[in-house]
């Protein structure tokens, strides 16, 4: 078994090592040529795919349920310990395979697509870091370790949205996605703490921590918060179209394939605990249904290629959530894999939209059957108008978030700042002047 354990360690660490080595070299002033970067990328992902194939073959041959590698604990503080456990089981393997194949393909695509782009190396560094993060998240044997991978996926996602740093829109939108991620990641962190507190461990390499009743419900709901944020489920969906500011291939792999399904992976991971809690299952289904409807309606009213693809993705991820809530694990898994493939291809082809549409248009003979007519037939004029406006503003989700969450929060913080400075002036010291930027308040 040592054989496939080595392979698993290699698969997870390889992109991480590439990232660190290239980044360090870059830091000391050596910028490798494009061809070197793309060769390394190709070689690493090809080797990893082979290694993964070996793991799968060994598992199938021996009939073992999983490959587990334990490095002991990273650190221990009183009762708390941080176990370093990698595990590849029947749930991890498909996700690992998907990550490797798609990252490799995206690497191949980007070598051509980003040729001569000043941020070429930066893009590939982030791609490797992202691959490392998702492989770590999918191969982690404990939630503690999963958090590490999860955060890496989050930060690379944000940095790639803000890839074109010289314009303001990508940076602003990246920051917004970052804020939503951070807010939702609280769920994951608190969930892990709760598991440690109640079950003494957050490792699932030997089965999920045993929790029942309300405790199970609470942990599931906390993890659901994290999953929903990462998967852009209602009510957090507003960030998804904003994430389309990055280069096309990163939109494809993040929001068509891997990052968007990471939330589903998390839920699949805790599925045995989820089935014990009717409340949590119901919430998962409710969020999934709401997202699917929200996604399909917003997508229908979008007239640009990437937004409409983003919402098409969202719709199917909503359906995946429903499947998980109901307990159809296998269907959810097949759905995720198929969906990732379809969407990656569609995102990569998005710039061809014009070409493809004109071709299709002429093949059909110039008369396309109109779409969306049944909506107009079924609904009354007033409802139609309302629904169309609702869809066009993407369910008003961002507006609601701005007006009823962010704005009051900022007012509150300003109030505290004022109180603070009053207190300071009472005590005879001068308060630092808070600097407000006009742009920060712009969208409320």
């Amino acid at each position, binding site marked *: 078994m040592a054989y496939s354990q080595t392979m698993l360690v290699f698969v997870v660490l390889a992109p991480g090592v590439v990232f660190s080595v290239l980044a360090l070299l870059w830091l000391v002033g050596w910028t490798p040529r494009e061809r070197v970067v793309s060769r390394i990328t190709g070689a690493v992902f090809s080797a990893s795919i082979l290694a993964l194939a070996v793991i799968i073959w060994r598992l199938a041959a021996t009939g073992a349920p999983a490959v587990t590698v334990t490095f002991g604990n990273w650190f221990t503080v009183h009762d708390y310990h941080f176990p370093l456990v990698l595990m590849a089981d029947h749930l991890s393997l498909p996700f690992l395979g998907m990550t490797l194949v798609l990252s490799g393909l995206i690497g191949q695509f980007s070598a051509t697509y980003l040729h001569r782009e000043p941020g070429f190396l930066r893009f590939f560094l982030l791609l490797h870091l992202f691959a490392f993060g998702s492989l770590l998240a999918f191969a982690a044997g404990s939630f503690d370790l999963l958090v590490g991978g999860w955060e890496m996926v989050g930060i690379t996602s944000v940095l790639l949205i803000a890839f074109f740093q010289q314009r303001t829109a990508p940076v602003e939108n990246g920051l917004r996605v970052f804020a939503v991620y951070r807010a939702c990641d609280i769920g994951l962190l608190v969930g892990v703490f709760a598991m440690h507190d109640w079950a003494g461990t957050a490792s699932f390499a030997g089965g999920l921590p045993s929790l029942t009743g309300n405790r199970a419900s609470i942990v599931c709901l906390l993890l659901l918060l994290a999953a929903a944020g990462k998967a852009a489920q209602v009510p957090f969906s507003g960030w998804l179209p904003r994430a389309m500011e990055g280069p096309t291939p990163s939109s494809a792999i993040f929001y068509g394939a891997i990052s968007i399904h990471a939330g589903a992976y998390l839920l699949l991971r805790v599925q045995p605990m989820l089935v014990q809690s009717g409340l949590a299952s119901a919430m998962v289904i409710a969020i999934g249904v709401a997202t699917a409807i929200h996604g399909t309606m917003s997508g229908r009213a979008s007239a*640009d290629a990437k937004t409409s693809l983003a919402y098409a993705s969202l719709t199917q991820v909503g359906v995946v959530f429903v499947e998980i809530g109901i307990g159809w694990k296998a269907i959810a898994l097949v759905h995720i894999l198929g969906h990732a493939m379809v969407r990656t291809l569609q995102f990569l082809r998005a*710039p061809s939209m014009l070409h493809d549409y004109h071709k299709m248009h002429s093949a059909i003979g110039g008369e396309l059957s109109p779409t*969306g007519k049944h909506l107009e037939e079924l609904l009354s004029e007033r409802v139609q108008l309302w629904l169309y406006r609702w869809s066009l503003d993407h369910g008003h989700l961002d507006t609601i978030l701005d007006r009823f969450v962010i704005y009051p929060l900022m007012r509150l913080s300003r109030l505290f700042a004022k109180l603070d400075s009053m207190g300071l002036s009472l005590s005879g010291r001068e308060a630092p002047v808070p600097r407000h930027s006009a742009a920060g308040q712009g969208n409320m």
Partner: protein
Amino acid sequence: MSQDDHPEQSRGDKLRLAVEHAGHLLPMQGPIGVFVHHNTLHAFQDLPFEQAVIEASHRFGAEPYMTEAAYRAALARGRIHLEDIDAVCDSEPDAVVFPRLSRHSLRRAMMTPGVREFDAATILWRTEQGDLARDFRQPALRALFDACFARIIAHEDEPAAPRSVDEIIHPWLIRLCSVFLDQGMAYWPMLHREKGFYESVRTLLAPRGGIFPRYLTGLDEELERQEYFSFSATDAVLDYLDTQRFCEADWEGVLQTELLALPGWAGLMRRLEEDPSLAPHETVPCSLMDFLAVRLTMARVASREGAAETVPQESPLKNQEKRRLSRAARVYDAARVVSLSADEVTRLSDAEWTAFVSEVKACNGLERRRILHLAYERWHEREILRGLASHRQYRGLCELEARPTAQVFFCIDEREESMRRALEEADAAVETFSSAGYFGVAVDYKGIDDPNSAAFCPVVVKPRHSVFEQPKAEDRELLESRRWRRRLLGLLTRNSFVSSRTLMRGWLSTTVLGLLSAVPLIGHLLAPRRYAKLRDWMNKAFLPEPRTELTLMRNTAQSQGAVTGLLMGFAALEKTERVASVLGPAALTRRFARLVVILGHGSSSLNNPHESAHDCGACGGRRGGPNARLFAAMANRPEVRAHLRERGIDIPPDTWFIGGYHDTCSDDVELYDLDALPATHQADLSRTVESLEKARAHNARERARRFESCPENASPHATLRHVEERSEHLAEPRPEYGHCTNAVCIVGRRSLTRGLFLDRRVFLASYDAAQDPGDQSLAAVMAAVVPVCTGISLEYYFSFVDNDRYGCGTKLPHNVAGLVGVMDGHASDLRTGLPWQMVEIHEPVRLLFVIETTPERLMKVVNASASLKQVVENRWIRVATIDPDSGRIHVRRNSGFEQFDGPVERLPVAFSSAEWYGGKIEHLPMAWIQAEGGGR
């Protein structure tokens, strides 16, 4: 607001006029599916170039020239010589600043060694730790700075603060524009589009029950109020202008600012208002007034909600100090480069000091860039004209003695220059000509696979004739089966396209069939060329191709299309005219070869929203194959030849015309109607096809030298494969470099340029002054060539010098919106102009026209046409002439034509183009390509 209220009516008219004027500044680009190159600054074309770029840069906040650093770099690598700078300075009036210093010497010193730019933001740092601090270590410089700082330097204007309501209203406005203009991308099209933008938006947003962003709350009430008073768009705009208390004189300025906040979307509205037929699939009633009404209503609500407040960032006092320092630094730097000492500065009289400061100010960054740019162009002009003068000695070698084996017509396009040269190198007995790529056949054409007909001619021409492609009688059934199979395929594609995005069908299709997508995904990315070949092969197997013919005959005098009113086909005389209009100016009136090939061109690439920008400009942004095919078919008609003979164009009976198509991206060449070729000509054909095969490989190789990603020492075969792969690669942002690097247009005989390596940078138009005593042909050629080439050249110029504002930035984040254009990310303005990947290796110079005629004859033609006159007199192009007899060259300068002389050096000689360009990636100078065996 009743319509017959008189004063209101006239205010409405005034407003319409103001909107129309303000709208002129918007980009001319239509829906991107048919890309036509325009002068980006078309609105400023009535001004001289140098003035226009400056005015436009103020208006649009854009750059007029390259950066000073870029010109400095050009100076350093010898792309600009000092003599060019001197010549430019000398051509402008000199003045005495003070006894020791003339304007010219001051300017010369400010250009080279050159002065630095200073601004208030960085000045403190620079005096404390930066380059100025280093200067100050020399006591003389320190003293000089202090001396300058001590004397008063007059004030400058401050830049205006940016507006802030844009960020509030743009998300909604952009979304509304994109769904309103959508050509079929959204599953659910916008409701009530037929009412126009303003009314449909009002109907949509006025009902209660929506949630608006904080600063737009009340938009529904405002729209409801406007609905209640049944405002028209004009009323809404007037209402805004009145409430904001703008007087009529300010209207145009206010509206301009509003329109220029989102020029892409507003510009498209305007284009579609002017010409609704530009919309590729769905006609939508556009109007700029509607756009303004919506925008201003939103702006009004936003500013009422108090969004427009801005917070000052720093104390204004401190800034003033910094500005004073930076002003002093500018004068100091100029004083430094002309070696003034602190003493001299102190001793200058007030008048002298003021004169000095104002001279320094007049030679600010913009002015220096202008001079450097003129020098940059002058260097290029000298190179080209010297090369042409030097080529004259080889002229004798360019004339063919025997009857040519074939004559091939290309488009004037500069991308065909290398193809022509390659063809002549492949077979020295081939003659090549060029003519604007629609080959005189302005036609409304519909191929068997096209759903609608389209105009195949320059955009300024309206076709009067229509031609269809139809299957030959025996292949009718084949076409039927092709039609329904294509339809089936199309429906299948559409269904999978739509269903993968919907809820329930998407569920089924992604779960059940999703994994199958891995096949195209992997195919496209790992083996793009082979995968494309496989698809082609499957297409061929599934879709039979009928042999076709064109409906070019019209026997009855007046048979018109019932709906279009277009004449069906061409009558014999009309055909004759078309053929003569190409052969005449090209001076191909005798000595015809047995085979004459006419090659149209276009470009096909994958994953490229700007695909059409690479197509033929003379065909209105379409692919010129049908025009070439039609021309050949006409020229083969016996009755046409009979008429031509009467006009002195004697085509012998053994000459046969073949139409064809050259794909400038994959370098494919396809010839049409070969089954009609007489058996006697088969040998000629195979010889020509062989030469064309060689030529396309050579051409691919020459193009590939510019691509960094093409291996340097690849074999010709591998290079051809590389080029073919580019056109099929899903990830390729630069399938070809298009018109990039274009710089010159030569109108004259091929003997002027044959064997001359022109680096694919020169438009070539065939013209022979000897056969054109009345200058009619010259007028015809100029009318066809100048607008097309000028549009291309200036669009590349502006998209290069300011790719962010005049161009559309990098392609990588582009997002196709509504099938009409591209946005950056999910909600930006519609980006117009060319992307960086298309222009990155361009050299921004105005197109240099070199015309083989005399200055007098040229100016006669130019002065007869208002549009030519404007372009020439305002110097949007550079003009030179070559005397057809003496070869003397004249260049047009501000004051008229000047003879160009100077030493004529011998051209470098190479034995083939490949030898000259091999292993080089940069722009190359001219060279004489001495063909092997001395065939010429």
